[in-house]
């Protein structure tokens, strides 16, 4: 599913003429199989978010390659990556990243609109997804009218609505209380089992890391450990 080979990334800091390079990732290589839940853990500044952003195509790697579903995405231009994200990836963000002026239904409908789906099919799919995440009857609510857990469910519904084979999650429980966190983790495991969706989850929370079939531990931009979380 995902192959990361010799991935290096550094940021350039300062103004022209007085620039310094900050190395964030150094020669990272790992593989994620289809249907796996892989969690990436590490302290702040370990490079785990940068790694997720590189795999998402939000930033370009300095060196190395990323292959997802047999496509060398690290060579994609912005448009190609956008198209790839729409068709192959779903995203769950710590702060949900819902569009506040759109209702829960409209937020879920958005990927379907971008895909160019017809209005009737779109409506049916989005409503089914609302039901799936247990938010039936909340479709006309704006994000500000929903609890954190409900917003994250909308966010998950949006990520799942196009049935992508891969979901990337960045601190998905970071804004949730412990009860809601547990519900969400169960839901992720259920989706993985029932639909075979691959999850790559960034977290610093042990409870989240524990649901992974495998955990990759990062420190100072390098993989220091890989295996079942203990």
């Amino acid at each position, binding site marked *: 599913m995902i192959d990361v080979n010799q991935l290096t990334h550094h940021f350039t800091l300062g103004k022209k003429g007085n620039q310094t390079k900050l190395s964030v990732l150094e020669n990272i290589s790992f593989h994620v199989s289809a249907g796996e839940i892989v969690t990436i853990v590490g302290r702040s500044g370990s490079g785990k978010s940068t790694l997720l*952003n590189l795999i998402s195509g939000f930033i370009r790697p300095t060196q190395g390659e990323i292959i997802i579903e047999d496509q060398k995405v690290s060579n994609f231009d912005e448009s190609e990556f*956008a198209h790839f*994200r*729409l*068709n192959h990836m779903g*995203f769950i*963000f710590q702060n949900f*990243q819902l569009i506040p002026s759109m209702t829960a239904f409209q937020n879920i409908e958005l990927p379907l609109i*971008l895909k160019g789906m017809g209005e009737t099919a779109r409506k049916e799919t989005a409503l089914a997804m609302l039901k799936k995440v247990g938010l039936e009857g909340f479709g006309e609510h704006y994000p500000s009218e929903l609890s954190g857990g409900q917003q994250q469910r909308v966010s998950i519904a949006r990520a799942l609505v196009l049935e992508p084979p891969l979901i990337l999650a960045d601190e998905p429980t970071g804004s949730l209380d412990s009860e809601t966190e547990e519900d969400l983790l169960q839901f992720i495991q259920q989706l993985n089992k029932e639909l075979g969706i691959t999850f790559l989850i960034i977290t610093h929370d042990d409870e989240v890391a524990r649901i992974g079939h495998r955990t990759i531990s990062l420190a100072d931009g390098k993989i220091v450990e890989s295996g079942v979380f203990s």
Partner: protein
Amino acid sequence: MKLKDQFRFILQNMKKNKIRVFMTVLATAMGCAFLIVLASVAFGLHDSVLKDTMESREINEIEIAGYEDDNGTYRSINDEDIARFEEMENVRTVTRAKVVGQEITASLGDDYEGTISASSTYFPAELEAGARLAEGRLPESSNEVVIGHHFIPLLTPSNENTEDLWDEQGFVKEELRYNEAIIGETITLELKKIEDGEESTGQFEVTVTGVMEQPSREWMWDQKVYISEDLLGEMEAFTGTPRADLYDPSDEENEGLIADGYNSVIVVAANLESVQGISDQLKDQNYLTYSIVNEMKQVNMLFTIAKAGLIFIGTIAILIASIGIYNTMTMAVTERAPDIGIMKAIGASPKVIKRIFLLESSYIGLIGAAIGIVAAYIISILVNIGLPLILEAVFEEELPAGLMFSYIPFSLVVIAIVICLTVTILSGFRPAKRATEIDVLKAMRREV
């Protein structure tokens, strides 16, 4: 993303800031209306001039002033030339006249007289060309004549004080005019001649058989006496000069002073479309020609320049409005940066983002243009109704009938829409490009 969904998306976005969008649309509408109304003045006046010209008889006429050979030698038009003109394709008729070369004193009995001009006229051609008699009939013998429409109003009573004779229009006052039937009356035409340096006069008595219709233009006066060619021959015999011109034929210096031939020849084309072709053919054959169509070319050119100039000035107004659109779109991009970031993150391509913003600026331009067009039509109607009333009240003078101050043809509407859309799309281009360049991570962190 389907166009319908993009459209729905921009409507949703526009609703978020109704007042700002309304003000931008208003500015665009005002710019568009200004452009149309401004240019409509040139279109209106051009249309009035064209209509006025097209309604006149002269539009189909080509005046032939003479013939000039390759060496530059000039001669008048003669009967051979006339026959050649008549044989040309699409020529309806050829009117010709020889104007008597001196002023003639015309007397009606002992009570009325006037200074007039006279010309020999080929009446069949005149009638074919559209001339009509207001009353009476055409001459049938050499001493019968037809008089011009203004012959009577310009005939002065012999015993009146000349200071009190004229009305405001320059005619003899109504109450002082000859007001009896003129048909069948005898007029005496008095000509002068110079023989061996001595000047003497001769009189020709003629009978009026008809009165010509009023000329097509209000400002034209027709006080002529239309005589037969035979009578002109008699007058030439009296003076001893061609066209009865006033000079001494016995003086060797005057030999060949006036060439024999017609001095007013008009080729009347069968229709307007053939005027240019006939005119070109005659020019190729070295004839000196003039037609209103030639003049219309220049008039059209002038109006085209005026229209282009006014459209250009109007475009400046739209350009000013485009600053508002640029501002609105830039604000929209800034405000919606987090949403754009989210959309890009979940798979919206830069092309889609750009298209949404360009569509929004085009939509503002299109609504502005639509409102501007409606406003321009209303202003145009008000100008056409109100301005003549104001001008007539201020200058106390009646304006020409059918004069249009403002006219909005469909082509002007299309031009305004094209300019409006082009300017608004261009003004939305930079903000749209900026939207595509928004960094996803920064936008989602609300750092844009």
